[in-house]
């Protein structure tokens, strides 16, 4: 239990640090590389749908706290994505590289569209796509997943094995 808590805390802090570094380099990076989605997908694939949903809520609320918009929109879209990713990955084999890449891409694409739908529905205003950069998010974040997931795994291994 303690190990799980530590694992979640450490990977979450790592995600925020990575997000902050990317934002410092360029604001467009924070749009095309959604680190919080990776955090959700990592836990969904590793631990299942409940972890995916819980991390979706947490990741979404953290993301919303970094923006002036309505607090909770990203939380809903990420919760649903986390749950679905965990649920589907238990029923189909997503371990092979290409299949995993396609699976992650589809999940990220669904999340972006769900977020856009919720944003338009709740706020009733046009959302900012940064001249279309936002639509590159699923592709770029999928590529980043193959760099970040091994790092998340290494971080988890560093933690004590029992507890």
């Amino acid at each position: 239990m303690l190990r799980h808590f530590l694992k979640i805390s450490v990977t979450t802090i790592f995600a925020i640090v990575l997000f902050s570094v990317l934002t410092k380099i360029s604001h467009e990076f924070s749009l095309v590389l959604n680190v919080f989605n990776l955090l959700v997908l990592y836990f969904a694939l590793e631990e299942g749908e409940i972890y995916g949903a819980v991390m979706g809520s947490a990741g979404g609320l953290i993301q919303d706290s970094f923006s002036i918009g309505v607090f909770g929109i990203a939380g809903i879209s990420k919760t649903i994505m986390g749950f679905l990713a965990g649920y589907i990955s238990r029923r189909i084999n997503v371990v092979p590289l290409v299949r995993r890449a396609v699976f992650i891409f589809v999940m990220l694409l669904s999340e972006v569209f769900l977020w856009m739908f919720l944003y338009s529905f709740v706020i009733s205003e046009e959302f900012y796509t940064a001249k279309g950069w936002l639509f590159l998010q699923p592709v770029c974040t999928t590529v980043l997943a193959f760099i970040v997931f091994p790092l998340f795994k290494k971080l988890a291994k560093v933690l004590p094995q029992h507890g």
Partner: protein
Amino acid sequence: MPSFLKKKKNLVVLFCLIFFQLILLSIQTPLGSESTLFEKTVFSIFSPIQNGVSSIIRGIGNLWKGYFSLRGVHKENKDIKEEVFFLRLENRLIRGLLDRSNKEAELKEILENIRESIVYTRVIEIDLTNKYKSVVINRGLFDGIEKDMIVLDKLGQLVGRVIGPIGPKEARVQLITDSESGTSVHNQKDILGVVNGNDEGMCILKYIEGTESGVDIGDILITSGFDHIYPPGIPVGKIVMLETTDELFKSILVQPFFKLRSLDQLAVIKINPNEIF
């Protein structure tokens, strides 16, 4: 727990989480622009991490510069820049005062406090959803920052105002380029209007009637003070496009003076503007 709930435990968790967030969303509606306690808490917990990362990156950058360039010159340059920063802002505020005050003793008393009212700050984060909406600064409750304090750039031009949430060492600033922001302004001919952001880095000057002839391209807009948020006399932007259509009001595009790319140094004015202007 009933057996059907046990069987569908995962779905129950999912619906509970979504329900919790729907409650969060509905709580915000009556609050308007106010942040919920939960949002303030999340902001206060996670923004210090960003502040820390920002400080480390800046520190590494400074170390690099300091080590490889002439250290003495670099330090001197930094000191002068800081001095110029304060002098410009003081000058801006003093000019505003001189225009409005004629009591020498009163003026002297205010001038003594004016420097203490300027809080030097840096941007640690730009809004994730839209960079033209808000920024987070590395000053907060511990530095005496409060809601609605005005924020200027290093040239004394209007950037925005402090809104919630305000953490111990961080605060969110709404930029004038945010579509939710509204600033009462006037031009050189005292024609009044309201400037709203367009979420794309520009502003729109509203409520100028189609028949109004006192507004033209190139006009400088300054705050009028009628919104009771921004004090009068602060430069806001310049009219870059003007169209008269069939509609009641003109369509006017304003280029704000502040540049998002050069928001490295900002000033929060702590003193209540209505007290000094």
